[in-house]
């Protein structure tokens, strides 16, 4: 293994600072006592946190919407992704491939186009602006993530375990319950959490399908953009970045993050 020289370290630190700078600034701005976003914060207070989580209804309601949509859509996305990934793993039939293609399509194409299309579709069906339509929209958009992680998990299953199960007379159902499901659980959970965090932060598709009937935190912030940012919004940013950090730490703790991200297994130093 090559050692990283001082120049390399300096570059890593510089990049880290670069990534962290806007996030740190936003977090610090949450402490402002006044109404404007100043850095460094003036008249520091924690009152904004109380506003965001307790007293200001516009934020508590958006936060509740964000949480409901993220949880429900991630759950639905994982449920939809499982049979698709399983089908692709079992046989590379045209049907399985069509399913994989359909499920992955919204994620790889520009979300603004998908959002516009969903907006039309829900409007024709008369359910534009309902929470349910929002949940299905996000599930469709983010289904590619659990699909990817579950596929990786299925491919990591040791073939000999399945052969052993089959030899000893296990039906497909039993083999699934005793071999496939336990070995892919961490990958399923990772997929769920990826979809959860992305839904939490997603903005543009929700923008088109909510049709101003309700708002999530990101929507509410965007809507307030013209009037300028306020420190209360920064509390939202802190909440979101902490959630993401916690979730991904958990994924790293219980799953194999480098493998999920495509590292070569043979180099497990």
């Amino acid at each position, binding site marked *: *293994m*090559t050692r*990283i020289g001082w120049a*390399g370290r300096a570059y*890593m630190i510089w990049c880290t600072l*670069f*990534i*962290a*700078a*806007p996030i740190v600034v*936003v977090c610090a*701005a949450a402490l402002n006592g006044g109404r404007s*976003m100043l850095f460094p914060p003036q008249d520091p207070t924690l009152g904004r946190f109380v506003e965001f989580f307790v007293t200001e209804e516009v934020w508590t309601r958006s936060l509740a919407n964000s949480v409901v949509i993220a949880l429900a859509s991630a759950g639905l996305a994982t449920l939809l992704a499982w*049979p698709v990934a399983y*089908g692709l793993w*079992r*046989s590379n039939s045209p*049907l*399985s491939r069509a399913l*994989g*293609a*359909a499920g*992955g*399509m*919204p994620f*790889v*194409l520009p979300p603004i*186009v998908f959002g*516009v*299309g969903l*907006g*039309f579709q829900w409007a024709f069906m008369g359910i534009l602006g309902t929470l349910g339509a929002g949940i299905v929209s996000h599930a*469709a958009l983010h289904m*590619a993530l659990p699909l*990817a992680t579950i596929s990786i998990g*299925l*491919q990591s299953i040791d*073939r000999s375990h399945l*052969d052993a199960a089959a030899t000893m007379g296990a*039906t*497909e159902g039993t083999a699934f319950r005793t071999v496939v499901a336990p070995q892919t659980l961490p990958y399923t959970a990772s997929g769920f959490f990826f979809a959860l*965090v992305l839904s939490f*932060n997603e903005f543009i598709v929700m923008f*088109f399908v909510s049709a101003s009937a309700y708002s999530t935190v*990101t929507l509410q*912030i965007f809507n307030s*953009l013209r009037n300028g*940012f306020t420190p209360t919004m920064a509390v939202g940013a802190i909440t*979101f*970045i902490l959630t*993401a*950090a916690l979730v991904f730490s958990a994924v*790293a703790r219980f799953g194999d*993050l480098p493998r999920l991200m*495509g*590292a*070569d*297994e043979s*180099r*497990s130093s």
Partner: protein
Amino acid sequence: MTGSAIASLRARLAALAIEDSGAMGAQAETGDETAPGTTQAAAAAPAPVAAAAQDRFRLFQMALLVFLTAVCVAPFAIVLVVSLGEPLPGKAWDWAFSGQNYTRVFVGLDWPDSTSFLYLQRLMWSFIYAAVASVVSVAFAFPFAWLMTRGSRRSQTAWLVFLLASLSLSEVFVVMGIDILLSNRSGLPMVFRETGLTQLLKDTGGFQWFRDMGLASPRNVRFKTSVLATVGSMSYLVFPYAVILLYPAFSRIDASMLEAARTMGARPMTVMRTVVLPQVRVALIGASLLLFVFLLGAYVAVTVFADPAKQTIAVSIYESVRGATLNAPFGAAQAIVLLVTAAAFLGLSTLLARAGGPRDPSH
């Protein structure tokens, strides 16, 4: 198969999606990994019971396909259908089969009497912002991914958590942070003013350059609104993404090859050029293309940081569908133009990945 990333799966799914829609004729195998279950599962299956189960599963798959088509594919088809519609006076529109919205996108409403390239110009700005930002972010991500994959698996995991957390942070929060960093009262202009840099620039005449570049008001430097701020914030948005996309290729670089080159007396730069670069070239180009497609649809950063005359097609789509101008079929036509552009570049990156696949040195 090799451990495949979300990223490479994303590319693979893109390949599947494109094949499915028939936009690409080639029906070749998708990359290095085809479903491994096929042969073994068929061999191990005890005939009649398994066959019945197989049939049930196929039926279930068909039902699922109907549902997924309705929620994942139909929206794109609806955009296409609406784009052929006819706008009526007021805010309404009607179904039709007309190409007038596309004519308007490409040559303007009054063609052939007069031509206007307003919307092509917006598409051009989409291209410029996305192209520059994707290349910049990949250029910065290249050394970062290299250094990161030289560390232990533990440190790699820590970096991945950090990158994923910042990657998933919503565009609105990132824009908010950069907005503060560029604001006159507490951002870079304040730093310029307070440190005397502004005065220094004025004294030495460098200030005029900032004025000429549109980066200064008569009193101080000013970064909003500017192409620099737009491209900068877009590069920032995709930098963690770029590292994650490059990560698989870099983590598979064979350390023993590097050592061999070193032992034989190659200098670090030579090793980089002759051993590392050939192994990651495809990944670098592929990542740039994927980020380019991703950035074509960037919205918040453009609305906040770009000059009104330099807005992109994504902003224009929003204005037509939900915003000030309200002309749904026209918005849909612009969306289709964006979609086709994105799909074309995705197809290109897939072809590239396939062409580069067999040369993957780890296999």
